[in-house]
């Protein structure tokens, strides 16, 4: 029987993968993907807990997150394209222009 904890474990593993991606990756596009992974890990957790408590609020929240993620990607990808056109690279090590 697959229970709540299994879902939460999957969610946690996915979140960690996403977090590692955010921390380790140098390419901005890959960072985006990693962020998406983290968001979806949270979505899984929301849906699972919502089911567990028989409360639809969590699932509604997951939908909101999906919608907002979609718009964020749309805006973010636009910025990425502009950045790429300007610098010819999406590598964060090359984009460090605000060194203190």
């Amino acid at each position: 029987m697959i229970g709540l904890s299994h879902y939460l474990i999957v969610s946690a593993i996915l979140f960690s993968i996403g977090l590692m991606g955010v921390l380790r990756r140098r390419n901005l596009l890959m960072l985006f993907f990693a962020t998406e992974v983290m968001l979806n890990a949270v979505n899984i957790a929301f849906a699972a807990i919502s089911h567990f408590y028989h409360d639809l609020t969590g699932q509604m929240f997951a939908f909101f997150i999906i919608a907002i993620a979609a718009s964020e990607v749309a805006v973010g990808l636009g910025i990425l394209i502009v950045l790429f056109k300007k610098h010819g690279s999406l590598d964060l090590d090359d984009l460090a222009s605000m060194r203190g």
Partner: protein
Amino acid sequence: MENLVYIALFAPLVSSLFAALFGMSPKKQFVGVVASVLLGISLVASLMLASYVYTTGNTIHVTMMDWISAGDLHIPFGFVVDQVSVTMMSVVTLVSTVVHIYSNGYMDHDKSFNRFFSYLSAFVFSMMVLVMSDNFAGLFIGWEGVGVCSWLLIGFWYHKEDVSREENPSISPSWAANEAFIMNRIADLGMLVGLFILYWNVGSLQYDEVFAALPHLSGSILNAAAIFLFIGAMGKSAQFPLHTWLTDAMEGPTPVSALIHAATMVTAGVFLVIRANPLFSMTPDVSYFIAALGTFVAFFAASMALVNRDLKRIIAFSTLSQLGYMFAAAGLGAYWIALFHLAAHAFFKALLFLGAGNVMHAMHDELDIFKMGGLKKTMKWTYIYMGLASLALAGIPFFAGYFSKDAIIETAWNEGTLVLWLILVVTAGMTAFYSFRQVFLTFEGDERYKQYGIHPHEMYKYVLIAMSPLAILAVIAGFFKEPFEHFVTALLPEYHMSEHTHHIAWLLGIVVLVFAVGGIALAFKKYYKGLKRDEALESSWYYKLLANQYYIPDFYEEFISKPYAMISEKMWNSVDMRIVDATVDGIAKFLYETGDGSRKMQTGNLSNYLNWMAVGAVLLLVVAAVSAAVIG
């Protein structure tokens, strides 16, 4: 009548503020004139109030406004004009007016002429607040006000360098000003404690309420309050052991010495004891101590005056000695006699000081009487004034001092305190001797100043005329003894000599007179012809002891000032620099260095920032988890 009270009180303040407007500018003659006129207005108002109180017997009590009103503490700005305060007001404004006019001449060449008048009038205002207040808080404000003005005026020539003196290793006006202020501060702490004790136990600082509540207080509280109040009086009136500041205060301009350090401010301590007479009459032990201390100071100060060579310091010692007489009278319960001597003393002592100022002016600031002599030719009027004042001081019959000082000595006999009586009689003889030693050395005999190339000249005429009211009062004030007694005993307790004393009063008077005349005769014999220095006497140990003021200034220097400076130095080096400063510096250094260290995080690389963000988030999680576990 209420308006007169305000005019008497605030005319000096207006004068002070007016002069202050020109404080920074060069000498303007009209400043001195306006200040003198305003002080004259205050004098006229005070005299009108005095005649009102005298003729009707009514007292005036005004409350100008609420001053402090917080919780149970309620202190109004109230002023009372009764027999005691109106006497003080008249004396203060009279002497002040004369001194203001005198200062026009004396400070003639001073570049800070305007500033001087501002300070001088501010002093008069503070003194008026002190004597007119209807509560202890107002008295204390005036008390501090005169202290500040005294500090400003002693240190008026603050630019003068330290110079060595016989009895003082190094002294300058600013040094003397600080000494006076600090000594008074010690005493004022005592006074504050006394006021707190009264407030704590009575719940009010109004004179009438406090005095009404006194019978309900226990003896120990009364004693404590009386002792602490008297400590305050000791500082202001320069009683032993807080006396050294008064002679050093002579570094100030001479009109200041006349007004503040002879006639008015230093008598504030006596005034306090007279004002609080219901308290002191209930504490016989403290009162007896006051009388004994006063007698001791009278003798002690007179002995130092015997050998001093400084014109102003001799008069300062004599002031000290006369303050001792006043305290002796007040301590023995003869409050009205103390007040009478206070008033009479104010007149002749101010006159004496102003005369000394004339001499100093003529001698180009030379104060050593051994370098004077024969000044009577050029300074006839000053000689007459100082001679009259000295006769009054010595207690020669029919001059002011005879009536007041004799009454004090008679009181000492009447109370059966024969030791005090004897000391006071001997002191009267010493007083006569040193007064006339000074007069003869200054005005008679050979003209020693010539070898110092000094060309003396008499003071301006208007100054001499301005001094005449004091001279007249120094001569005739004694004849008002009966009406004065009748006037002030409406408020102060009456004091009558016993039948027995009354019978032998003539004999007591003759004893005192013999001593006084003997003192004058001795001074005449030794100094009238000129100065013959007696080497053997001057090198004897007792002469040196007196000339060095019993080595008390040295003692204070050696055992209080120096150790204190040493401790301060130690505390500065070890505690302040190593602990206090180091802690503050350490905090600043820590913040600076952590800032400098964490600056390295600012790489500009987004990936690094994200890593730091993750670290932060993890840290927050850990904190949340730990605190959840702990609070649980």
